């Protein structure tokens, strides 16, 4: 398994153009969404209190944003935008973002996944942008559908867990929540594997039939639990460690007003997470490749096809 992970890392390292692709899309989407609210704050930055907001989130921002709306009918004359007016406007735009972000996340994920998996399956071929984009387009709609179905099932599962655990915890005590954590974590991990391997099988078999590949992935996961755990547990643990280091170690210590440094560190964190995700995809491609070429493993032998380059 170490060899598999190492080989996968080799793939990730070989195709660094993918790092750029995934980061750039993430950055540009976020930049587009942030632009309007940020521009609305330029004029508000004439108010010196903006520094309190810039220096970190606390109750002060909350108060200044919502305080006047709560009944303190005071403010400047007509036409004067106060800081709280601006912050309130930004928060209203943030509400719109709450709807847009999941949609864009879903679409961008579906777009890139086909291209990434295709590139890894073509290894050690040279990276070319045109085939990459063709593969993105080829699997865009099937993966859009797959993402929608996976998200829907995930939400239903979360709702079921909460609906079951709530009364249980109420009757037996809050320890029930903690007792459920390992089971929920294992379930989440297996479900993640099924979802990702569904896409890997689809690209490997050059098919749009994601329902068939879902059952193939499900069969593979069910019969190769050790392989799945060996692949997913280390990669997830490394991802969690990166999160912990950034969120608890580095980010709280950053002086917020040193924005170039903050921007740099934040982007490094984002890139780290993206690369770790690519590592898992590459390992998934390798696992399926071995499975489909070995007669004793896998649900059915398939031919590895190259639809975009043939």
């Amino acid at each position, binding site marked *: 398994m170490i060899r598999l992970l190492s080989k996968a890392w080799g793939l990730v390292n070989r195709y660094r153009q993918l790092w750029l692709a995934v980061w750039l899309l993430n950055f540009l989407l976020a930049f587009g969404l942030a632009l309007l609210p940020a521009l609305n704050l330029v004029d508000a930055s004439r108010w010196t209190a903006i520094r309190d907001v810039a220096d970190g*989130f606390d109750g002060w921002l909350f108060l200044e944003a919502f305080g006047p709306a709560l009944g*303190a009918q005071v403010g400047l004359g007509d036409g004067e935008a106060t800081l709280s007016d601006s912050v309130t406007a930004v928060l209203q735009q943030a509400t719109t973002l709450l709807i847009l972000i999941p949609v864009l996340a879903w679409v961008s994920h579906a777009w890139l996944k086909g291209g990434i998996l295709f590139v890894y399956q073509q290894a050690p071929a040279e990276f070319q942008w045109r085939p990459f984009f063709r593969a993105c387009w080829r699997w865009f709609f099937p993966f859009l559908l797959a993402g929608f179905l996976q998200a829907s099932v995930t939400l239903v599962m979360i709702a079921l867990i909460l609906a079951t655990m709530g009364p249980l915890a109420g009757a037996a005590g809050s320890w029930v929540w903690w007792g459920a954590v390992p089971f929920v974590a294992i379930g989440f991990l297996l479900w993640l594997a099924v979802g990702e391997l569904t896409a890997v099988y689809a690209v490997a078999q050059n098919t749009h039939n994601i329902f068939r590949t879902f059952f193939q992935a499900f069969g593979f996961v069910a019969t190769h639990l050790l392989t799945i755990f060996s692949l997913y547990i280390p990669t997830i643990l490394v991802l969690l460690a990166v999160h912990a280091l950034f969120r608890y170690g580095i980010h709280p210590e950053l002086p917020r007003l040193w924005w170039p440094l903050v921007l740099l560190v934040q982007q490094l964190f984002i890139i780290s997470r993206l690369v770790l995700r690519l590592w898992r995809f590459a390992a998934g491609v390798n696992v399926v490749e071995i499975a489909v070429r070995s007669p004793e493993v896998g649900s059915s032998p398939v031919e590895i096809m190259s639809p975009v380059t043939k």
Partner: protein
Amino acid sequence: MSRRILLLVVASLFMLSGALPVAAQRTEPIASYDMVVTLDADTKQLTAVSTITYVNRTTEPIPDLVFHLYLNAFRDTNSIFLRESGTQHRGEIWDPNAPGWIEVTSLALADGTPLDLELIEDDTLARADLPTAVLPGESIVLDVAFTAQLPRVFARTGFVDDFFLVGQWFPKLGVWEEGAWNAYPFHANSEFYADFGTYNVAITLPDNYVTGGTGLLVEQIDNGDGTQTAVYHAEDVIDFAWTASPHFLSESRTINGTEILYLYLPEHEWSVERVLPAAAAAVTLFSDWYGPYPYERLTVVDVPDNGGGAGGMEYPTFVTVGPVDILGIGAAENEAILGSEIVTIHEVGHQWWQSMVAFNEAEEPWLDEGFTDYSTLRAMDVTYGEDSGLIDSRFIHLGYLEAGRLSYLSDVHVPMAGAAWEFGGTEYQTAVYSKPALSLRTLENVLGEEMMNEVMRTFFQQYQFKHPNTEDFWAVAESVSGQTLDWFFAGLVYSGNTLNYAVSEIDAMGFTAVREGDLVIPTTINVLFSDGSSTLLSWDGTPAEKRFDFPDRAEVIQVEIDPERKLVVETQWGDNGRSRTPDIPAWLAIATRLLYTIQDALLMLGGL
């Protein structure tokens, strides 16, 4: 032993014993109670006899007596309390299947002359004519027998399972003032008002219970029949409350000669290391700021998770706290949420501002709650760090001051003065808690901490064991500070005036400052110039709009009114400071965080 004999024994025990561990009395008792009570732990019922000694220390003859029968507020939905509260109090709901009530079974003078007790108002008050008036300087002794049914814990009293908080449980005399009894029916927002006296209380209950109560436990008798009798003695107090549970554990520590005893439930063992230090800090700080705590013991009581109605209540030398889930999110144990600390410090603060300086909580609730909440704000800052409070996590912070401002901003126009029943639910919170705390903090910032301490200390020492009112505080504050404080008393206490300072325009030559609202508090203005120099101006807030020009200085680049944010009652700080040009670094810092937040969300939700 019959109750009557036990009562005599209890009374004589205190009269004859010179060895009791109690300090010298600090007041001349007015209303004193010797009570013998039995708790039936199964039916949750009390049967008791009480000998009341009332001394007329007024200059008027008193022709009748008026008693509070508070437990009748919980008998049915016809009571004023339950009508006004909609059967809810602090998130707890009155249980119609477990009501509370009190019935006086006999009332007589010590010589056996029976008195007719007439229930008045909604049965939470009762009145009896006396055969002859009690003349000034004379005293009267009464024998009262009563039965009380405790409700399922609600509004500071009752039971839950085998936990008992027994408060407002006995017939208690009102306060004779200005030719009449100052006694109101029990209103939903109202608390209490009583004269100082001495209490001797013998409580008989099952022998597996641990008890706590006002004053000192001076004797514990094993009756040999599965019951015990716990005997309490308290002097210079205005009330007597007690608690019992077979599950109580205890920890204590001694501060300045006062033992702080924490009675806690086993499931809340974690709270020991939070409640006790908070109580100790409060006793230390308030003793230092206002005056020493004179009692030998302060009992702090934990309450069960399903008995929240018993938590957060103050009685003389006895307060209830418990694990307080102040945000209502099941996070009482979370160390980032300082609910337990806030409530502990607040309730201990009432020892000074209710138990010793005994305000009329019904007529002027802002005094005891406001003084206490202001004291809590100060003590939280000193003990847990500047502007500490509600949430102190690494990622989000909501200080107690900020939480107070949030509450204040929801009802800025409500005056602080007013009787408890004159306020609606949220208005009461603002008028009685947050606005007084913010107003007193503003007063402290205007006068200076040292002068404020002097004002508060003088007021406490002048009025401890007395019943002062707002006018008394006004007189002391102006006398000690040497300042006219109309803005505080006329502007904030007796009216709902508001204040917002703002910089309405700024140019190279100067700026215009405006004051919105009728409240006028002197402040300062910091002006920065393009050559790097600055100046700090004083502004008395009049007129409502004022232009400041600096023809002989470099260009003005930035102005900030009240730069240290001393005026915490100001409704909007966000418009106090203004620059001539946008603060691009600050803007970029915010834009960077916004960009990252969206990137993070895209990654979390989409996987890429």
